[in-house]
């Protein structure tokens, strides 16, 4: 028994010596190096640290009394009071944690950026940089929530302040969370038990309505250009060389691909039905889709020409690169050479003025009143304009 006591006391003394050796110089260092002013400190943290210290003192007194058999009422009462206060502070600490962290981050960033001298704050281009600490596995404890606050946390939160504490804070965090190991690995948990998606990187905001409309327009234009009518006309009357893609045929293969995909899906479905000995129901959407593809397969009229937009096809004829010509009327006819100004002794007006002039005599309007007419008259290559050029 006595040997046990001696060994315990020896080990106690040893630990005490070690603590003295490690802790005292660092405390003296911080106290001497940094100058604390009362305004810089958070009152809450100050109270917490002093409360902890006095609690420790009273606790040692209590233990000593216990050893010698004394009972000190005031000591016990002080202890209970401080314990209650510390418990209450735990809740407060939880609520204040975010603010304190923000302050610390501001302090550290201020110190680093003051030295860098670059732009900081909202203009900082690096503020959305990747944060690899957040991306690593949760075995080290998740970023904010790993300390479900216990009394253990208060030690590192309380005593120090200021920018130089940051590394210590991080190190303390890691050790505390490793020691606790409360959480299951790899699971993020919030304080009210709901799942919170991990925030890895910042993403720019792209909810532009205008952009979406432009995208739609571009898509429809592209689809029109791909209709078979437009393509065949272009191939026949244009002088660009023919293009073939890897499947040998141009865009005709698109609907075949759709039908193929549908057949694959159907095969998958029948396999599932036969495996489970049940019949699955095709939704209305699926039925519509099937009907549409069947129609496409059987008769190809829709792919040949998009009849809803004949005007645009006529206008876009000849424009393979997809430029839309700003949507206005096409270019006016070219200026003819002045030698043709006289014919049959009469002065002939130029071709475009003739076509533009509304001729009530002829009963046919020369001036384009809508986009269809504009497309028809101004292109001219189709031969629909009633110009005198042909007569010359």
């Amino acid at each position, binding site marked *: 028994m006595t040997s046990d006591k001696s060994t315990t006391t020896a080990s106690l003394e040893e630990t005490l010596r070690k603590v003295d050796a490690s802790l005292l110089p660092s405390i003296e260092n911080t106290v001497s190096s940094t100058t604390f002013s009362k305004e810089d400190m958070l009152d809450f943290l100050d109270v917490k640290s002093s409360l902890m210290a006095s609690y420790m003192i009273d606790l040692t007194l209590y233990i000593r009394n216990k050893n010698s058999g004394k009972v000190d009422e005031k000591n016990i009462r002080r202890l209970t009071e401080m314990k209650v206060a510390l418990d209450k502070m735990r809740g407060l600490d939880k609520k204040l944690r975010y603010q304190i962290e923000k302050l610390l981050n501001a302090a550290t960033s201020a110190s680093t950026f003051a030295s860098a001298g670059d732009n900081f704050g909202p203009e900082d281009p690096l503020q959305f940089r990747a944060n690899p600490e957040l991306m690593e596995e949760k075995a080290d404890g998740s970023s904010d929530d790993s300390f479900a606050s216990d009394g253990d946390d208060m030690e590192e939160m309380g005593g120090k302040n200021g920018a130089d504490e940051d590394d210590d804070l991080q190190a303390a965090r890691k050790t505390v969370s490793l020691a606790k190991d409360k959480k299951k690995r790899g699971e993020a948990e919030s304080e009210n038990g709901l799942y919170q998606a991990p925030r890895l990187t910042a993403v720019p905001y792209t909810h532009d309505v205008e952009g979406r409309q432009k995208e739609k327009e571009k898509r429809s234009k592209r689809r029109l250009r791909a209709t078979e009518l437009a393509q065949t006309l272009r191939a026949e009357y244009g002088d660009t060389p023919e293009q073939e893609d890897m499947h040998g045929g141009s865009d005709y293969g698109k609907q075949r691909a759709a039908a193929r995909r549908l057949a694959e899906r159907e095969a998958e479905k029948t396999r599932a*039905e*036969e495996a489970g*000995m*049940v*019949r699955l129901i095709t939704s209305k959407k699926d039925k519509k889709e099937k009907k549409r593809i069947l129609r496409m397969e059987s008769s190809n009229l829709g792919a040949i020409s998009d009849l809803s937009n004949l005007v645009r096809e006529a206008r876009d004829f000849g424009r393979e690169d997809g430029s839309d010509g700003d949507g206005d009327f096409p270019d006016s006819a070219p200026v003819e050479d002045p030698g043709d100004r006289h014919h049959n002794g009469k002065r002939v007006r130029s071709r475009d003025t003739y076509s533009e002039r509304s001729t009530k005599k002829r009963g046919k309007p020369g001036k384009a009143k809508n986009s269809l007419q504009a497309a028809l008259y101004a292109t001219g290559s189709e031969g629909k304009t009633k110009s005198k050029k042909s007569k010359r």
Partner: protein
Amino acid sequence: MSDAVIIKTRKFKRNPLLARKQMIVDVIHPGRANVSKSELGDLIANMYKGDAKLTVMFGFRTKFGGGKSTGFCLIYDNEESMIKFEPKHRMVKKGVSTKKETSRKAMKEAKNKGKKVRGTGASIAKHKAKRAALNE
């Protein structure tokens, strides 16, 4: 109608948990719209030496273009397992059981009647039976 009907079965499996044999049936019936389930049931019962009353055919779909249909078939070992495991709508179609009254009004009346009895009413029924026996 004079064309022969060819029946092929696929994925035959014996399911001892539900005391039945189950399979997928392919029917080739050129010239006919389709083959009725009862006729098919008789044919398959002959093929597998089961009872026509214990064969259930369901899920028959004719392929696009006609002439070919595919469906499922179950052949039970005995009547009680069939009654136990087969879903009620199929039993009703077969004619083994009849459909329960499910009109809204009738259900509400039954529910309101049940509200007067606390619990299942088993003890009350026992009591009534004892009383009746005593009075006789």
